[in-house]
């Protein structure tokens, strides 16, 4: 076979695989639902169910949905960039099975969440931000390694977290 042909076939196969994977992902992940901010959208992947359930039984259930914490909100470019980056990462991880039973938030994910804690709670306690350096020793640009949930350990997913941590999540199924 000519090298050119090989290339052509390979390209075709690659495109086909990409398309196929895309379609598979779109189906598997109910892609259109991501246009909403409904928390239930995240549970299109079963591995998010436990996080959904722990959130649903937390003090924040009535106050903040997943994207309120996990996505940047004040900046639309950052928001959709993050959304697609995460979407890609999660899909790949999900499809290729590269995640463990106990997933961990990425540094970038943690940064965003931290910013969102501060965003909401700045209005609640106007002095929190002002004095943040004094009381919580956030010194670097990324607010240091001290995270809100180092102290508020139950917010919002609780101390125990794993894919299997909350079996029988009736709420997830109900909301579907």
């Amino acid at each position: 076979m000519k090298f050119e042909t090989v290339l052509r076939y390979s390209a075709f196969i690659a495109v086909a695989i990409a398309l196929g994977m895309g379609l598979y992902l779109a189906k598997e992940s109910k892609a259109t639902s991501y246009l909403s901010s409904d928390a239930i959208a995240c549970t299109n992947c079963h591995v998010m169910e436990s996080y959904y359930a722990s959130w649903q039984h937390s003090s924040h259930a009535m106050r903040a949905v997943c994207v309120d914490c996990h996505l940047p909100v004040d900046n639309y470019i950052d928001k959709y960039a993050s959304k697609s980056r995460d979407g890609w990462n999660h899909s790949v991880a999900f499809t290729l099975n590269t995640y463990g039973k106990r997933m961990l938030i990425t540094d970038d994910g943690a940064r965003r969440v931290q910013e969102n804690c501060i965003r909401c709670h700045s209005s609640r306690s106007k002095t929190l931000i002002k004095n943040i350096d004094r009381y919580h020793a956030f010194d670097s640009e990324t607010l240091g390694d001290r995270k809100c949930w180092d102290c508020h350990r139950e917010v919002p997913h609780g101390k125990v977290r794993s894919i299997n941590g909350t079996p029988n999540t009736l709420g997830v199924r109900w909301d579907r």
Partner: protein
Amino acid sequence: GGKKEEQALLNATPVIKEEGIEARSDEWGKYYPHQYDSWKQTSESSKIEDQLEKYPQLVILWAGYGFAKDYNAPRGHAFALQSNRNTLRTGGPTGADDGPMPMACWTCKSSDVPRLMEKEGELEFFTGKWARAGSEIVNPIGCADCHNTQTSQLELSRPYLKRALEESGQELDKLTFQDMRSLACAQCHSEYYFKKTPYTDKSGKDQVAAVVTFPWAKGLSAENMEEYYNEYGFMDWEHKMSRVPMLKAQHPGYETFTTGIHFKRGLSCADCHMPYTQKGAIKFSTHKIQSPLDNIANSCLTCHRQSEQEFKDIVQEKLDRKNQLNVIAMNSLAAAHLTAKKAWEVGATQAEMAPAIDTIRSAQWLWDYSIASHGSFFHAPGETLRLLGVANNKAQQARITLSGILAKYGVIDYEVPDFSTKEKAQQLAGVPLDKLVDEKQTFRKGLMQEWNNEAVEEGRLTDEFVKGLPEKASYLPE
């Protein structure tokens, strides 16, 4: 590969039974051990708190009605059936067609109820005497009361709640999961009456069912329901002393809850009474439904940030406020009934008595509505105190009117007889306590044992835990 399996595993809902309703919680427990184990722990709340002993006024208020015989504070769900069988209110039937109570009295006591309703039909279920189904209704409140046997989802197993929701303007298909986490409880923790409903049974015979019905068509407030009952010309019984056509309010827990701040802020019953609980690496809703004050750390402290002691103190303060107004109102009501009795005795006419009679009916309804659910002092402190204030005002108003009538018939400074103990009050109300206990004991040693044996033989009662529950009642030694 692995992922599909994982997903299947995570999403798998055990099907407890392919078809129909599984009333035996021990069957569910095979698949849901944490929920089952915590459900069993409701048996820790077993103590009988005799309310008639504590507040003898109640006997006067309920003279001529079952509650004057026996009335206790609620215990854990595991005891629901036992309380129902042991209370003197259900009497000592000697056979299927005997006894003072109808089938409807089983309604909120057992997971066998939805099973039997499905089997017989709803109207058929609500037909006949209580003793008719004694060997069918044998499992206390359990999984099938709140969950669908095939999907395990929360489900309203009682059709009357669905009808009431619709009558009050709610659309059933818009109910959220959070709604369901309260409505599961509203199936029972709600005010009800038995609606006489004629129908023709399968064999073509005319029957009358006494169907549990929630009076929600005009709204859920005390005043709304009062209007409902008045329009309908309804009474639960005629008072033995005052001859007032009375209403009985039974535990409007859900209704009063909806007027409180926690409901307004979106909470459900399960948030406090079934908080998420951690056992090892697993989290689940505790099914040990109890006073949240026994579990402040998991309930209140999810949202609040004070010490447990602070919560106890705040709840106690609310309780004290209610108790104070409650005792005041009960005393006024008791005096009103006894004074009315005197007025009849000295010859007062129907026409003279009419205004006072209306006022007493309304007063006692508002009083009963405000406190009968036990938790309203906390769930809805403002509404509870308001209603107690209005109820007492009406009771006092009736007393003033009645004093006037008595004076007209020459009776001045009438002093009501002493009702300061349960014994004295029951004497006044004509409750033959010893006789009632005797009948009950005969029943408990006879028919009730037969029911149990039959249920065990036919495999309807399999749970060793249920069989082993300690027997308690107000008339049994502790």
